[in-house]
């Protein structure tokens, strides 16, 4: 019976109910989109790292275990030294330069070496570097910036000429020749990372062991170890930002539900008086209002989850360089966040209703 009362109360004011559910839903979508973009983009970085075809990567001493830019540098003599090690089939140095976006670098490569390691680019437009200032971009980046072969783009300072558009999935979204990159951003002979391909997967542990012995201060990972580290938890900025959004969502949801329930309590003063006259206890009345808030939260959370499919479609259409994952393991957390906000938001109006004087409430018009 009480559930029917709760359901009918919400159905009785459909616009208010819908707006409240959407209000909660939007905040839930914000969380799920943030988590989805973080996870999707990091997943994309993992995929692109694997797309290099390398088995091991070497980063400079004192560099962060997971660094998305290349401030610390290695000398390219080290590349030659790595190539001389037993079972090393290929080694190539790459110079990374942040392109200004959180996750996007311009990677300076030796195209022949990189092709050999990764299996080569698949060109959708144009072809390899022809001029020193040539840049190869992947399809997602080209689409997001509306770039084609022959376009000119200013990224990380200098002006670049697009020579080719390639399928995504290999290391970065923007590539330039390593020598040009050194001229523009670095010193001769410097690289940010050395990617190593081993002659046989069975030899990866022994090569890793050997490299760690001869370069004890360097950060050396197998590709598996490296991609395992690429997660939201390993990027404190993202983790903190997600927590901030969660807190803001709870506050926003709380305000939405508070406003809805407070208005509902005012609008239904007489009904609350009727329930009191019938013998409803303060707990019974509080229970009715909290159930309404919980139902709003559930509907809002479901709406929020469904809206993440919409944001993913919009993201794919308008910001193709950001990949949004659907995160079902966060759905129950989103529901919990919505419920927390709704219960907190309904508490004060609920207590106000429960404490209302029955005679005054019955006299309310």
């Amino acid at each position, binding site marked *: *019976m009480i559930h*029917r*009362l709760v359901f009918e*109360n919400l159905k*009785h004011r459909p616009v208010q109910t819908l707006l409240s559910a959407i209000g909660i839903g939007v905040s839930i979508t914000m969380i799920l989109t943030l988590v989805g973009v973080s996870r999707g983009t990091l997943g994309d970085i993992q995929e692109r790292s694997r797309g290099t075809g390398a088995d091991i990567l070497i980063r400079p001493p004192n560099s962060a275990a997971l660094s998305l830019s290349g401030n610390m540098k290695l000398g390219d003599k080290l590349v030659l030294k790595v190539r001389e090690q037993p079972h090393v089939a290929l080694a190539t140095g790459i110079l990374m330069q942040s392109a200004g976006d959180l996750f996007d670098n311009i990677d300076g490569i030796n195209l022949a070496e990189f092709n050999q390691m990764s299996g080569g680019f698949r060109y959708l437009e144009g072809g390899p570097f022809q001029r020193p200032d040539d840049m190869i971009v992947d399809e997602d980046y080209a689409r997001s910036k509306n770039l084609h072969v022959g376009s000119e783009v200013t990224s990380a300072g200098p002006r670049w000429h697009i020579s080719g558009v390639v399928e995504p999935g290999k290391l970065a979204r923007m590539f330039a020749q390593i020598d040009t990159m050194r001229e523009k951003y670095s010193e001769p002979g410097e690289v940010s990372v050395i990617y190593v391909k081993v002659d046989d997967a069975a030899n990866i542990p022994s090569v890793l062991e050997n490299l760690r012995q001869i370069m004890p201060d360097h950060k050396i990972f197998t590709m598996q170890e490296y991609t395992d580290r690429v997660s939201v938890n390993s990027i404190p900025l993202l983790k903190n930002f997600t927590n901030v959004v969660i807190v803001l969502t709870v506050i926003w949801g709380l305000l939405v539900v508070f406003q809805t329930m407070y208005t509902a309590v005012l609008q239904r003063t007489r009904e609350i008086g*009727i329930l009191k006259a*019938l*013998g409803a206890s303060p707990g019974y009345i509080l229970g009715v209002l909290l159930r309404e808030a919980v139902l709003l939260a559930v509907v809002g959370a479901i709406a929020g989850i469904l809206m993440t499919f919409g944001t993913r479609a919009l993201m794919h259409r308008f910001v193709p360089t950001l990949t949004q994952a659907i995160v079902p393991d966060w759905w129950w957390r989103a529901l919990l966040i919505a419920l927390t906000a709704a219960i907190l938001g309904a508490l004060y109006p609920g207590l106000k209703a429960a404490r209302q004087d029955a005679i005054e409430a019955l006299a309310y018009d």
Partner: protein
Amino acid sequence: MIEIQGLTKVYHVGDTDVHALRGVDLSVARGEFVAIIGPSGSGKSTLFHILGGLTPPTSGSVHLDGRDLLAMTDSERTHLRKTSVGFVFQKYNLLPTLTAADNIEIARHIAGRNNEPHDLQFKETLRMLGIADRLNHKPRALSGGEQQRVAIARAIVNHPALLLADEPTGNLDTENSNAVLSVLRDLNDRLKQTILMITHNPEAAAFAHRIIKMRDGRVERAV
């Protein structure tokens, strides 16, 4: 059934004390149908609220069905409303979001009797009220007379010791007023339901066994 002696009620409005009841003495026997008449401000609504457990008395003695209302806590008065008193209001006071049937059911739910089947006596009462075929309608689809009959059904569904009716015909035309008053009289005759009815209308009061007139917070006389 109802024993009242020296009942007073003082409301504090800002710095002013308003003496709504100034020593009411009244006895109502079980099964009686009593009408209380009097001008505005005579204290009849305050008496209604005290007997219904909606507000506590200030002093005096009020016993309803053997229980002392003066000594009751808020939660005991809530329990009293749930189990021993049924209300019928001038403005019907049905919950607009629920059907007529659910308006009756919610009273049973609050009383914790929703899992019990309706007794034959109540089914007979529904037939007597003439609303059996209107139970699935919401209040807005019912006439004033029908809404008031649903309110009466809701008031008696838990078999209260006392049915309190506050101007039950105040919003009704003559035909519907007579129908509702006849229903109250029938309930009293057939079920021996004790009824206390407040009214301004002498014709409505005439349906009762006894008429009590109030003035200035006191019972002036029995008519």
